[in-house]
């Protein structure tokens, strides 16, 4: 017992020493440098949170675009409910917060020398690197679908000109036309987004071109919030949206952009407007930096989102394999802030606390018809898993007052999330 007690005293002494020494260590990190590659919901939130939590850390955000065009709510641009300008956010507030914004691309990473090479040839040294580059569309994964094809059959899976192109094609379509949306196998950015998009397009068609149809060709047999979406379709758009799952021949094997045709195993579907959501992978810089594995995505530890392939490099957001956590803006933002806290700890020589993360995602089946899915996640068996008993979706039998309320919350959530990240 004596031995036990003295061991305990040693622990207490160590902890006390750590507490007393902490301010000195925090000061010593003054020279620490963190480079964040990618100014989306994950990277921008991480850069900003680092500067807020530890102003002495030198933080550089590497982002070639002057403005960020947000994907959440971009389906409303496609439906004609919003202007693309409402999706655009600048990096000015982030710069004002003390983050050095480098308006360049990252072209290479040397994990041994701990430097990032930028598109002008300069090199940025770092103590910790955060890679949050989002996705690249995999132009080799679907025969017939390349960058030229995307001008005929838009993906609109990165908000911007592609979103506007899909909107224009819908506006130009005759009443009675068929809109075809193809959905890839998981994982891809924002799991429920193809179904929200089908709903939003149906909302526009019902009002303006009511004889038209939306056909969803799916590489899966089930999808996120399926019962909620299907209940919404039955109520709002009866007979307008048809979903063809994998087991009923929904898997698209190739496309022909010249005729806007989707080829499945047994069938051909000619579209008046064709929206291809192509297979995806972590963006190129993740592959170049050696943090992506053979799946095309980036495996990370669930504590500080540090790459399991390259120590000292953290990967956030859609590019990373985050266990059960969905690839979505809210998730990336939560990961960015948790990663910042972990990096502050690591630079101060402390062990980061286990993160607890929340994801909250709203879908709008119509402007006044919203529903949600939330999850709470923690590290478990080397990955982020859902905390049992927590999380869930809106009730399938919710009334129209509840749907209207959640639609208002969706809009409010978007305003707060974008203000918190960029505003």
């Amino acid at each position: 017992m004596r031995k036990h007690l003295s061991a305990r005293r040693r622990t207490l002494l160590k902890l006390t020493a750590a507490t007393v020494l902490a301010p000195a260590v925090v000061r010593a990190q003054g020279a620490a440098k963190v480079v964040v590659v990618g100014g989306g919901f994950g990277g921008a939130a991480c850069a900003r949170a680092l500067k807020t939590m530890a102003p002495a850390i030198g933080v550089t955000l590497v982002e070639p675009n002057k403005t960020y065009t947000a994907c959440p709510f971009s389906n409303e641009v496609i439906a004609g409910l919003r202007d693309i300008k409402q999706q655009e956010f600048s990096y000015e507030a982030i710069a004002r917060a003390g983050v050095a914004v480098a308006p360049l691309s990252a072209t290479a990473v040397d994990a041994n020398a701990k430097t990032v090479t930028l598109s002008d040839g300069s090199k940025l040294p770092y103590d910790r690197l955060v890679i949050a580059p989002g996705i690249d569309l995999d132009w080799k994964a679907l025969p017939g679908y390349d960058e030229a094809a995307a001008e005929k059959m838009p993906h609109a899976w990165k908000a911007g000109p592609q979103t506007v192109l899909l909107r224009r094609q819908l506006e130009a379509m005759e009443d009675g036309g068929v809109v075809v949306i193809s959905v890839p196998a998981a994982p891809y950015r924002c799991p429920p987004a193809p179904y929200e998009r089908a709903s939003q397009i149906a909302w526009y068609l019902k009002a303006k071109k009511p004889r038209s149809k939306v056909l969803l060709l799916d590489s899966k047999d089930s999808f996120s919030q399926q019962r909620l979406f299907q209940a919404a379709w039955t109520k709002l758009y009866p007979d307008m949206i048809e979903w063809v799952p994998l087991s009923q021949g929904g898997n698209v094997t190739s496309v022909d952009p010249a005729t806007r045709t989707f080829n499945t195993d047994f069938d051909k579907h000619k579209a008046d407007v064709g929206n291809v959501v192509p297979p995806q992978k972590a963006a190129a810089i993740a592959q170049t930096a050696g943090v992506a594995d053979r799946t095309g995505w980036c495996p990370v530890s669930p504590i500080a989102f540090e790459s399991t392939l390259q120590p000292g490099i953290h990967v956030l957001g859609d590019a990373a394999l985050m266990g059960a956590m969905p690839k979505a803006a809210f998730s990336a933002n939560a990961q960015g802030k948790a990663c910042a806290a972990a990096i502050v700890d690591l630079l101060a020589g402390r062990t980061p606390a286990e993160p607890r993360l929340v994801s909250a995602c709203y879908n709008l089946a119509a402007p006044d018809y919203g529903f949600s899915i939330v999850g709470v996640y923690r590290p478990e068996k080397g990955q982020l898993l859902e905390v049992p008993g927590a999380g869930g979706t809106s009730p399938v039998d919710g009334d129209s007052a509840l749907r209207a309320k959640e639609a208002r919350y969706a809009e409010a959530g978007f305003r707060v999330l974008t203000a918190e990240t960029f505003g």
Partner: protein
Amino acid sequence: MRHWPRGVLAAALASLFVLANAADAAEPPPGASSCSGCHGTVPNGTPIPVLRGRPALEIAGLMREFRSGAKPATVMGSIAKGFSDREIDSISQWVVGQSQ
């Protein structure tokens, strides 16, 4: 020589951890940084309430009511079920004081 009950030891260690964390006030307790994804820090006319500046006990009480289902909610019940009493208390204390 008496045995130290496990709980006493845990409580002693826990309070030390709390002290250690208090030295780094800007760092949120696990889970707390997710709140600001929906809850803004200034009123902006949205229906999602601002938490900053409210009494921590009020927020902690609401979280417990959401968790038990005593207070109906859209998403807060599902979120609150992912947190223990202690976690709810630390998160509540942090979110009411945060500046960002």
